[in-house]
Structures are given as C-alpha cells and as structure tokens.
C-alpha cells in the first residue's frame, strides 16, 4: 500500500497545486497564462511522444493542434446553429482529440514510412502545406482573420457555464491532469517500451517481431490525439483559432519547449512548457531580444546539455538515490561554474541589449536601463564593462567547467560502485 501511495504522491501534489494556483495568482493575466501553460503542457507531452519517446523530430506537429482547434470552433458554432448534436463544452476537448487522431492516422501513414531526417522534412512539408491551405480555403479557415466562437453554450454540470475564465482554467487543469496521467501510463505499456526501443535502434526492433514503421505510426497517431485535445482546449480558452496555430512557428515553439525542458525524461516537456511560456509572456515586454535569447538558449542546450533542464536534474538522480551525501562534494565546483556562467551571460545580455538599442530604438526611447542602471550605449564605458564581464566570464567558464565535470564523474562512479538496493 505504501508504495502505491508513494507512486500517487506526485499526482496528488500536482492536482492540489493546480487547484490552489488560481487562488495564489488571481489576476486575469496570470489566469490566462496558467491556462495556456496547462494546455501547452499537454501539447508538449504529446510532442515528446514523438521526439523523446519515439525519436521522431517533427517540424509540423502544430498541424494536429491547429486543425483540432478549427474543428472545435466550427463545432461550437454549429451547436449554436443547431446543425449538430449538442456536446457539453466539458467534453469538447475529446472531440478535438479525435480530430487530431483522424489526421494523425491519415498523415502519419505517409510520413512515418521514414524515420530520421526524411521524417523531419516530410513533417515540414505537411506543415507548410496545411498552413498555406488555411489561407486558401477561406470558407473553412477564414484566412488571416481565423475563426471565432463563444464558448458559453449554457449551463452544464454544477451550473458551470465556462463564461468566467476561472472555470476554463479548471477545465484545462482537469484535462491537463488526465492527459498527463494517460501519457505517463502510455510510457509504461508494451507500446511505450517498444516505442523507446524504436528510438534507440529501429533496425533491431524488426528482429524481435515488430515493424518499426507500425510503431512510429501508432505513436504518431496517439501523439496527434493528445495534440488535438490541447488544440481544442486552446480554442475554448482563446475562443479564436487562426493560421498561427497550425504554422511552423507554433511547431517550432513546442519543439523548443520540449528540447530545452528535456526530451529524454517525462517531466522535461512539463518544465519546458511552463518555463518557456512564462518567460515568453513576461520577457517580451521587457526586452526586444527575447527571440535571440531563446535561439541561443536552444543552441546552447543542444551543444552542451542535450538532456535539457530535466536531463541536468536526472543525471544526478543515481547519485541522489545511492546516497544523498555524495552530492555534497559537487557543491563547490558547481557554484564556481555557475558563477562564471552568470557573469558571462549577464555580460552578453548587456552587449546584446545595447546593440539592439542602437539598431532599432525608437526616438521616444532615450535611455537604456540594464540591471537597473542607466547604460548609455553611445559611450564606451558600458561596452567595456559588459565586454569585460562576458570575456572574463567565458574565461572563468573554461577554467571551472572541467572541475564541475570531474566532480560529477567522481560522484557517479561512487554511486555506481554501490550495490543495488
């Protein structure tokens, strides 16, 4: 019983957090932010069924997210016009999931015949094609304007109308929890394990009785199902869907979320979706260079931490499990490295902000405040300071990095040397 309780603990804690959050952050902005994060978590986890679990890199997964969104909006509008059977809004996401599943099965059949780079290119091709079609088929997609709806269909269970945003938040939170649990359990099924096996070694799988193509197709379809649920939730939350939602930009964003969060672990996409969307929503108002920072972060993660943020955490898990005290010797070398990293990053940010200010400043903006200090990008002082910080930081990174690595190596070797228990 205690192990069952232990396993359920994270889920109960997660549910409790989802219930409590809107009482902590009460503003409408925060509520929208959390609602979006909730549905993006579903989308990111769905995407990771491809990338992290199945080894398929897709540049066009927003297609299923967006098409489900379009369908949802149309369906809600049709309910108003009484052309289709009534479905309560609570269950509408399921409908979106089925739409995603339908297109996933259809398009997946063609695209999963190949893996690796070719698969990536096909997904890009489909993404481009569907985006172009949303602009051409005006009656269905209404071009750039997109389509709108009113999510309030009337009273449902317990008098919920989904008029107030808090009700939509709880709708999303509920679906997010259910989908997360479902996708987590999926990783523990025969399908989930073989999907991992296909990722690691598609050829070998063929010699233990499995068609790797069939597995990819199944993974693709199921992933599209969950992406469809996320798309429907998005449509209900925003009451609008437009071509941005199917576009390659949206696909790229979810890729960034999953990869930066960490594709190799289950929680990675959750971390990535939360962190990136939060940063995106708050930083865009602060700095113009946000997209550049995002790109650099992404490239940096690929080059230095291919496991993503969650990977950084989970690489310490064996040490932690073996003996928590083994983590202690890591503290000093890690903080040295971190300090160097922070100095370098702060210096670089300063330089970039000044460059942006010089190239695209508005005449109504006359001063640049970096880290609370007014920095004049037209005098040498700030340039020298930030360049020095960046340079010294980079130098210090080179000096401290090997120390951090060797500390980890020692710790992990110690941890592995201990018997299983």
């Amino acid at each position, binding site marked *: 019983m205690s192990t069952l309780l232990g396993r359920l603990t994270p889920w109960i804690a997660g549910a409790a957090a989802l219930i409590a959050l809107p009482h902590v952050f009460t503003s*409408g902005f925060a509520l929208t932010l959390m609602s*979006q994060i909730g549905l993006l978590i579903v989308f990111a986890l769905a995407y990771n069924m491809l990338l992290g679990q199945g080894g398929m890199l897709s540049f066009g997964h927003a297609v299923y997210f967006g098409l489900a969104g379009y369908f949802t909006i149309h369906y809600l509008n049709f309910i108003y016009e009484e052309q289709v059977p009534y479905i309560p809004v609570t269950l509408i996401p399921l409908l979106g999931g089925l739409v995603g599943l339908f297109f996933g099965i259809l398009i997946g059949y063609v695209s999963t015949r190949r893996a690796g780079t070719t698969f990536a290119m096909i997904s890009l091709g489909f993404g481009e094609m569907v985006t172009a079609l949303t602009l051409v088929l*005006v009656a269905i997609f209404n071009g750039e*304007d997109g389509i709108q709806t009113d999510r309030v269909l009337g009273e449902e269970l317990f008098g919920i109308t989904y008029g107030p945003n808090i009700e939509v938040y709880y709708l999303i939170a509920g679906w997010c929890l259910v989908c997360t649990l479902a996708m987590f359990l999926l990783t523990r099924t025969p399908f989930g394990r073989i999907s991992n096996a296909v990722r690691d070694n598609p050829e070998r799988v063929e010699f233990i009785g499995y068609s790797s193509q069939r597995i990819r197709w199944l993974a693709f379809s199921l992933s599209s199902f969950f992406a469809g649920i996320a798309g429907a939730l998005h449509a209900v939350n925003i009451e*609008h869907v437009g071509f941005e939602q199917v576009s390659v930009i949206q696909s790229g964003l979810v890729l960034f979320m999953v990869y930066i969060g960490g594709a190799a672990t289950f929680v990675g996409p959750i971390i990535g979706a939360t962190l990136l969307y939060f940063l995106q929503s708050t930083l865009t*108002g602060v700095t113009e260079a946000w997209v550049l920072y995002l790109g650099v972060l992404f490239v940096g993660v690929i080059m230095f931490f291919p496991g993503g943020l969650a990977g950084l955490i989970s690489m310490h898990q064996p040490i932690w499990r073996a003996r928590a005290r083994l983590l202690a010797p890591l503290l000093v070398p890690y903080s040295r490295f971190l300090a160097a990293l922070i100095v370098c990053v702060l210096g670089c940010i300063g330089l970039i902000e000044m460059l942006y200010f010089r190239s695209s400043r508005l005449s109504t903006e006359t001063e640049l405040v970096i880290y609370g200090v007014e920095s004049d990008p*037209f005098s040498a002082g700030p340039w020298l300071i930030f360049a020095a910080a960046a340079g010294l930081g980079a130098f210090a990174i080179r000096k401290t990095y090997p120390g951090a690595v060797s500390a980890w190596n020692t710790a992990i070797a110690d941890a592995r040397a201990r018997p299983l228990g």
Partner: protein
Amino acid sequence: MAVLKWLRTLGITLPIVLAAFSARGADTVKLGLIEPFSGPIAAVGRDTLEIFEFFAHEVNQRGGVLGGRHIEIVPLDNAMNAEKTTQQLRKVIDDDIRFVSQGVGSNHALNIIKFLTRHNRRNPDQAILYLNHSAVTTSFTNELCSFWHFRFDANVDMKVAALVTQIGRDPSARKLYMLNQNYAYGQAFQAAAQRLLAERAPDAELVGDELIVPFGKVLDFTPYIAKIKASGADTVLTGNWGPDLVRFVKAAAEANLNVAFYTIYAGIPSSVAGIGAKDGIATRLKQVTEMHENDPLYDQQPADLLDTYERWRQQTGKSVYSERMRWTIEYFAAALDKAGSDDPALVAAAMEGMAMEGPAGPMAMRAADHQIIFPMVISTMTEDAGRPFIYDGEDYGVAFATDGWIMSDAIELPTTCEMKRP
C-alpha cells in the same frame, strides 16, 4: 555619421523624456496599445508606438486632457499571435486600462472586437473602448459593428472606391489587371473593385483578375508579369502588401512592364525600403492615403501642425506617412474633453458624429457605424517632388506627388450596421 545622428536625436529628445518622467506620477488616462513589438513584423508595431507616444506627448504638452491629465500610452506586445492578444486584453482588464488601440492585423482587431463585446456585456462597469487605427476589414463597421469600436482609417471598400474613382479619371487606364492575395482581405479588395469598377471606371476594361497565395509564399512573380504582359494591360490594381507587393513590383520593373500600379500600401516604410526608388518609379507606383508630405495642401496646414511635423521629422528621422494615427489621438483627446470624463461609454458617445478639420476639408466619425469619413489622396512615387521619403534617417531618394483627391462624398459608402447601444 550614424553616431552623430544618434547623438543629435538624443540631444533633442532628452528634455522631452525628462518632462515625460516628471508627469509619470500624475493620474494619467491610459491607452493600451496592443501591437507586435517582437517577432517578424515588430518594425510596424514599434513604428506605431513611436507615433502614438509622440502625438500623445504633443497633446500632453498642450495641457493634456480633462483639465491637465496626461495621456499615457501603455505598449502591450501581442507578438502577432492571437492568443497573446487575448492575454494582453486580460492584462488590460487587470490593470484597469479602459481604452485600447490596435491596428496591425485585422485578425487581432476582430479578436478585440469579439472579446470586448463579450466583456463589456458581462461587465458594464468595467467597459473598455477600442480605437482601431488601421485594421481595414470592412465588416467591422458593417455586420460586425460594435458600439465599443471606432475606426480611424478608411476600410478596404472605401480605399478601393478611392482607387477606382481615380482610375476612372485616368485617361491612360484602359486595360486593368487585378492581382490580390487570396485571403479575407485580398478577396474583399477584389470583390469591392469588381463591384465598383463598372460604375466608376466604365472605360476601363478588366483584362485579368488573379488571386495568389499570400504572405510571401510566391517567390517569383515573373509568370504573373508574363500574363499581365500578354493581357495587354496598362494598369495594375492590387491590394498586396509586404513581400507580396515588393516582389510583384520588383519583378514588373525588372521585366520593363510598362504599367501603372495602383496600390494601397506602397508608401509605408517596409514597401518603400523593399521596392527601392528605381523600381518604384519605373512602375509608377501609386498609393492611397489620407495625406502626404508633398501635396500642395500640406503647406496650407495650420502652422503649429507644420511645426509638429517638422519636429517629428527631426526627432525620428522619419517621414510623416500615417496621419490617421495622429487623428486617433486627437479624437481621443477631444472626446475625453467633450465627455468631461474618462468613462468609456461617455467617451464613445462623445466621439459619435464628432467632426474635425482634416488635411483636405472636414472629416467626421459617422455615428451609424463608427467609421471615419474623410477625403483621400492618390499619389505617385516620383524621383523628386520636394520632401523626400526618409526612414530611420535614411533618404530613399523618392517622394510622392499628388494625382488627385477623392472627396468624402465619393468615398462614403452605405453601411449595413445595426448599432446596439448600451
């Protein structure tokens, strides 16, 4: 050289900002500006912000509104993404901002209209008013019209009406070729032109009518140029903007296609910069606007307005190319004063029917649908016609010269709006 320019502008603007900062503490009337300030078309959003801040500052310098309160522009980035627009609207509600403006992207405009319709119905005490400075979809002041929406730009149909009227006057426009972007806006342009051509330009024959996949998907326009050439057209009428306009015009110029281009958006900075002087002049590129700097009427504007324009050019290194954004602020200020309150419902009521002196005669905010009606001018890109087009301090070596004015009566179209007032 560039550094010098920056230093110069810094010297000019520093006192203004200091003044602005001293005003920050006071109780301001906030106007949220929801535009893309990041992402691929951030330039358009940021230009808008600059104009709004500049002219809001002008109003504040004159003594502000409502007996000394200042107008504060609150930039809200939507990154050209619909969900971000909604999110920013919720922020607007959080921060108790009661007036918003937007204009880049009619999809966002539509979202704002729908959102505010719902919000204002549910929360009449916290109603929010939307001042649309540039989103041109005609239906916003027809079947989708709302009491909470005011448009300070001509809609597509009106702009097409102006262009078609001018084509009717142009004796060299005999064979007309239309090419538009295949989405809501381009189709509306096409439909309006088809409707108005027979009536206003009976001598012009429509020899081609084409729709293309929009948003930069067409990389090479030469096949279209070949078709235009084969059709014998002497005039092209297009609503294209962005890369779809730039590549179209450049391809025509390169093939020495001898036609005149009637467009809406040839004169905005990204078009001028992308097309360049040589190709623009070769294709006799025309635009329809509310005003331009080289029109004879320009110099007859009130002296203080000319002063303001001159300051604008000095401070920003940019030409004056969107008068309507100035009006938006002016209307806003005048309506606040007329209402004597910053209650959006009262301000909206005050704005209805409000008249103001435009650059070429009176203009009015039609009460029936909240569409502004004003005279428009068609102008052609030329090499030298007085004030050259400048942007970010760069002189593009071109200017626009007036072809003719289309007065309000020719632009004013009937509306189907059934306005519901609270």
